[in-house]
């Protein structure tokens, strides 16, 4: 449906809808990682005996923090490259995260937990391109340093595998989140590039058409200018030759008009079904009671032959005023396609109705078909038979 082509941006809208699935996949990957991180720290407290014993309070604070980061993370979807580092809508989420981070060292006994809880939402802020990488490296280095110091200060008997898990999650979390978001950014960039590419193609096509029009018009205008100049010079000496040049100039104008029209309509294609329906509508609009029949597989018919035939015969019926009814029928049989148009010739025979029929006959004959014209006092019928595409 070419009317869709009018709707600019529709394609990108639909693709964007497909891309949202990837967005949710990215977000849930980050959130899942955070979930492990929170439970690791909530379980890390009181693990001196090496048991995995979840502290409900730490888990509750962790859940709050989880909500806060999710808030910031979801806002990331609407980020703009030139947007502020800290959009206003991120602030509530960040405050929740900061409060949780302050509470964490007290609840878990680990400064590393506090640092990780504080820094994770920071890395997913709207950092400019390139800066984010440095931020992540700095954050990860800081977390590694804190982890090393904390481990060195902790008595060996308090080292537990659960604390080690918390430590690994803390150090890996910023990098993992940012990698996921980087992947999302890349995908978005590809999507935008695709949109830009199709707009570029459309622009190039317009430019090409403009160039074609310019070349065509330029050529004809030059010819016409020369012909007129010649006519001007000849006017006094040889009026007949001058007249000849003026006639030639008129022919050039007609050629230029025709050429421009062909340029404008060269991409225009319409299905035979639509063409027949249009023909019926036009005849009805002209006050002729018209019917049209076409089989369901009408689009399998040779449109290159039948399209011009339908156009020419319908125009003939339209031009011939005074008709009351017309019938168009296209049907497929064993030996190919048969198109028939019948109308009552109330207007009488003025001999001009066969105009264009010679052209049709030639075209149909080239396709291996035949044309029959039936003239009766109250009926005029044109029947065209065309073999199937493959049999030509």
């Amino acid at each position, binding site marked *: 449906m070419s*009317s869709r082509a*009018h709707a600019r941006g529709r394609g990108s809208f639909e693709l964007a809808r497909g891309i949202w699935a990837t967005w949710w996949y990215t977000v849930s990957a980050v959130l899942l990682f955070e979930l492990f991180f929170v439970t690791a720290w909530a379980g890390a407290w009181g693990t001196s005996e090496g048991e995995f014993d979840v502290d409900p309070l730490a888990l509750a604070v962790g859940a709050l923090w989880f909500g806060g980061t999710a808030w910031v993370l979801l806002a990331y979807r609407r980020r703009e490259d030139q947007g502020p580092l800290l959009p206003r809508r991120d602030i509530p989420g960040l405050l929740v995260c900061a409060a949780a981070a302050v509470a964490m060292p007290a609840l878990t006994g680990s400064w590393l937990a506090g640092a990780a809880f504080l820094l994770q939402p920071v890395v997913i802020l709207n950092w400019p391109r390139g800066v984010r990488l440095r931020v992540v490296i700095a954050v990860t280095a800081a977390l590694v340093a804190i982890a090393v110091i904390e481990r060195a200060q902790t008595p060996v008997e308090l080292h537990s595998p659960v604390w080690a898990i918390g430590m690994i999650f803390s150090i890996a979390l910023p990098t993992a989140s940012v990698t996921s978001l980087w992947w999302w950014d890349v995908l978005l960039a590809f999507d935008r590039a695709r949109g830009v590419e199709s707009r570029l193609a459309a622009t190039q096509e317009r430019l090409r058409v403009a160039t074609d029009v310019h070349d065509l018009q330029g050529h004809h205008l030059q010819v016409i200018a020369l012909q007129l100049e010649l006519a001007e010079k000849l006017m006094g000496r040889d009026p007949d030759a001058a007249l000849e040049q003026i006639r030639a100039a008129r022919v050039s104008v007609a050629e230029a008009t025709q050429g421009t029209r062909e340029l404008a309509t060269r991409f225009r294609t319409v299905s035979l079904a639509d*063409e027949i329906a*249009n023909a019926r509508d*036009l005849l009805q*609009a002209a*006050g002729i009671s018209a019917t049209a029949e076409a089989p369901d597989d009408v689009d399998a018919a040779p449109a290159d032959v039948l399209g011009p035939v339908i*156009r020419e015969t319908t*125009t003939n019926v339209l031009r*011939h005023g005074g008709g009351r009814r017309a019938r168009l029928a296209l049907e497929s049989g064993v030996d190919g396609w048969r198109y028939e148009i019948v109308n009552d010739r109330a207007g009488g025979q003025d001999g001009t109705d066969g105009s264009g029929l010679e052209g049709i006959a030639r075209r149909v004959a080239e396709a291996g078909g035949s044309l029959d014209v039936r003239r009766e006092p109250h009926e005029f019928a044109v029947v065209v038979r065309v073999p199937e595409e493959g049999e030509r």
Partner: protein
Amino acid sequence: MIRVLLADDEAMIRSALAALLRLEEDIDVVAECADGTEAIARALELEPDVCVLDLEMPGADGVDVAAQLSRRIASRFVVVTRHARPGVLRRALSSGVAGFLPKSRGADEVAQVVRKVAAGGRYVDPEIAADALTDVRCPLTPRELDVLRVGRRGETTGQIARTLSLAPGTVRNHVSVVLGKLGVETRQQAVLIAEEKGWI
């Protein structure tokens, strides 16, 4: 003698065509008008045999002029155009226009069409007919077109619903189907497309 009224807002073309038509022995140009409103006034006053109307004119376009006049006087109408927008031929034929041809045709051809139309015939230029036949079909139902037509001046959903005696929800459904079919975001864009294509 065929008495002809000529209406075209492009003065050069109008006067050239008038001069050329006056050279024909059986044609007399009785009025030259620069816009649709003037054409209506002069035609009512003079009752010419044939009105040759430009399609693109300020005031009222050629088809509008023909539609308004055909109910009041016995003139025949020929519409000329530089670029026939889709759907315009259908509108012209149902408004009682008897002749339709592109502006690129020479004055001798215009004269022939004027004669044919004055004699009660109808003439549709093959080029314009071909354009009309290769139009994209309107994908909207009559009801959906009603909704666009009633709402074309930016009327609210409620106003459209009252005018068409429909429930507001039904109007909203029609609108969303229309937006989907035409692939546009707003009702205003849909109205623009429908107007451009001559559907409403």
